[in-house]
Structures are given as structure tokens and as C-alpha cells.
């Protein structure tokens, strides 16, 4: 894959990432897995997981891993550039011309609506990923407990990811026996 194509994919992806890094996961998946079929879903999830295991801006971590997997060093460079340029320029325009833009009804309305859209695409992705383990009740319980721990008890997501994965690993081994 050419680095410039990666650049454009990440420009598009970062333009629709409203409300934090997670919102970009369904958008990238649509491009990389569903539309262009460059990666399988499992491979893509491995990239997402790896990006979460180290500190840093998750969007940039993801862009770097995907870029380097698909097009080497230049791929990583252009993916990161694409992921950071759009937000950079949007914020620059806002900071220069209208800091009070957040009060304009048009923008307020747009982003209030768009965040509902982001919720929907994230919920849809969650359902897709859960479908595979619908019959493994123990794993569903672990995932539900992890979600509750993050949302209601503000436990750091890295600990939830590690603990949930260790439990799921143990459950998988027990079931395999």
C-alpha cells in the first residue's frame, strides 16, 4: 500500500474522530478491513490492542503501527502526519478566528448530533465483536465487569484490559481441556 493512500485514509479518519480516540476505531476498521480488505479483523484488532498497551496518543500509536505494517517507515510517517494534520489545522482556525465558536447554535447542534452518531458506530462495533463470544457466558461476564469498572469506578483502562485478558486467557484454557 502506498504511503500517500495511508495518508489520505488517516486524514479522513481523523476528520470523523469526534470525542476522543476510540471513535476512530470503527472508522479505520471500515477502511482497512471492510472496504479495502487490507487486513483481517483479527489482525486489525491486534493493532488496536498493541496501541493501547503503551502510553501515548492512541490515535497516533494506531496510525504508527498500521502505517509501519502496511508500508514500512514511510507508511508510519505519512499515517501519523495524516492523523495529526486535520485536528491541527481545525484547532488552529478555531483558535485564530473564533474561540467562542462553541457557543454558536449551528456548531452546538452539529456536534451534539454527531456525538450520537459516534455512539451508534461504537455500539455497532461492540456488537460485532461480541457476536463471536455470545455463547461463552463466562467471557461475557468478564467483559461486562470490565466495562462497569471503567465507566462507573473510573479504573484505568490499561488495568482493566490486562486483568480482563488474563481472566479470559484462563477461561479459554479451562474450556479447551
Amino acid at each position, binding site marked *: 500500500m502506498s504511503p500517500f493512500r495511508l495518508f489520505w485514509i488517516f486524514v479522513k479518519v481523523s476528520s*470523523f*474522530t469526534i*470525542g*476522543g*480516540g476510540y471513535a476512530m476505531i*470503527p472508522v479505520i476498521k471500515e477502511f482497512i478491513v471492510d472496504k479495502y480488505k487490507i487486513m483481517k479483523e*483479527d489482525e486489525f484488532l*491486534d493493532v488496536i*490492542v*498493541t*496501541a*493501547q498497551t*503503551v*502510553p*501515548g*496518543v492512541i*490515535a*497516533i*500509536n494506531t496510525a*504508527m*503501527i498500521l502505517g*509501519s505494517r502496511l508500508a514500512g517507515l514511510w507508511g508510519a510517517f505519512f499515517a*501519523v502526519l495524516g492523523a*495529526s494534520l486535520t*485536528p*491541527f489545522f*481545525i*484547532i488552529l482556525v*478555531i*483558535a485564530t478566528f473564533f*474561540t467562542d465558536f*462553541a457557543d454558536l*447554535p*449551528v*456548531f*452546538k*447542534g*452539529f*456536534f451534539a448530533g*454527531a*456525538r*450520537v452518531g459516534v*455512539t*451508534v458506530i*461504537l455500539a*455497532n462495533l*461492540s456488537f460485532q465483536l461480541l457476536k463471536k463470544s455470545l455463547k461463552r457466558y463466562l*467471557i461475557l461476564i468478564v467483559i461486562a465487569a*470490565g466495562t462497569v469498572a*471503567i*465507566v462507573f469506578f473510573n479504573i*484505568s*483502562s*490499561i488495568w482493566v*484490559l490486562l486483568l*480482563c*485478558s488474563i481472566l*479470559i*486467557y484462563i477461561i*479459554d484454557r479451562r474450556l479447551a481441556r
Partner: protein
Amino acid sequence: MILIELFWSFFKIGLLAFGGGYGALSLIQDQIVNINNWMNLEEFLTLISISQMTPGPIAINSATFIGYRIAGVPGSVCSTVGVVLPSVFWIFLILKLLKLLSRWIDTSEVFNALRLGIVALILSATFRIGIESINSIFTLILGIFAFVILSKFRLSVIWIVLGTGLVGVIWTVLLPF
């Protein structure tokens, strides 16, 4: 010099921020409000709400915004590069580590568990954005409608985000008349 200070502060944020934007917020607040006094708390909270409303990762948005406020365009470039750069280091490290690890253990089994563990993180992001954005009967109906369209017609997730945004504009701008 202010440009170096900006770069260094955001470099530290990128280096230590675990778990993406929400995890990084307290770290950003520490550097911007408590340590360097670049903004007071009220300005900081306005900035965060702008960062959450505009496209892009929260860490990059706030780096660009604060950099511009403190030292114009050069400031915004320095702080954005500062927050992005640590990802290069971390990703390089984790990819090397994974390669090394795969010699000793079968990492595919570990990743099988991690792929399910990450669903808890995606679900919790869904809930967090959902709780904030779906706060009225109108947004609930919009959400259900968008979800049905997404799963029945396999529309691009980008159109879902744009479409819900447009409905939001129509709702807030046209409805009062």
C-alpha cells in the same frame, strides 16, 4: 525559552499518558494549569470542551490550542510535535518487545485473549460518549434510527456521523422558528 518549555511539557504528557485522552486529561491539566500556569482552570475547561467537540484526539487538539495561545503558530507546532513524538519511541519499543517475546511464547494465544479484553474498553467508550450525548428523547430516537440504518443498510460510518450531525443542526437551528 517558551517554545522549548511547550515542547517539553507536551512531550512529557505523550510519554506518560496511558489509556488515551480521558486518561491524559489530569496529566494535561497538571502541566498547563498547576505547574506552568499557562491557563486558569476555567480557560482549561473551555479548551477541553472545544477539544471534545472538534474532530481529532483530545491530546493533539489541546496541544495545538494551548501552543497557539501561548506562542502563536510556532508554539502550536512545538507542542503538537511534542505530544506526538513519544508515540514513535513507545511503538518502536513495543514492536521490538513483541518480536522478542514471540521467540519464547506463543503470542497468538495471548492476543486471542487481548482481542476479547479490548471489547470492554470499546464498550466503556460507547457508554461514556453515550451517557453524555444521548440525554433527551430526541437524541434517543435519533440514536435508535441511526443504529437501524447502519445495521440494515450497511451505510458508511462516516455518513452516519455526518447525517446525525446534520439532523442536530436542523433540530437546534430550525426548530425554534
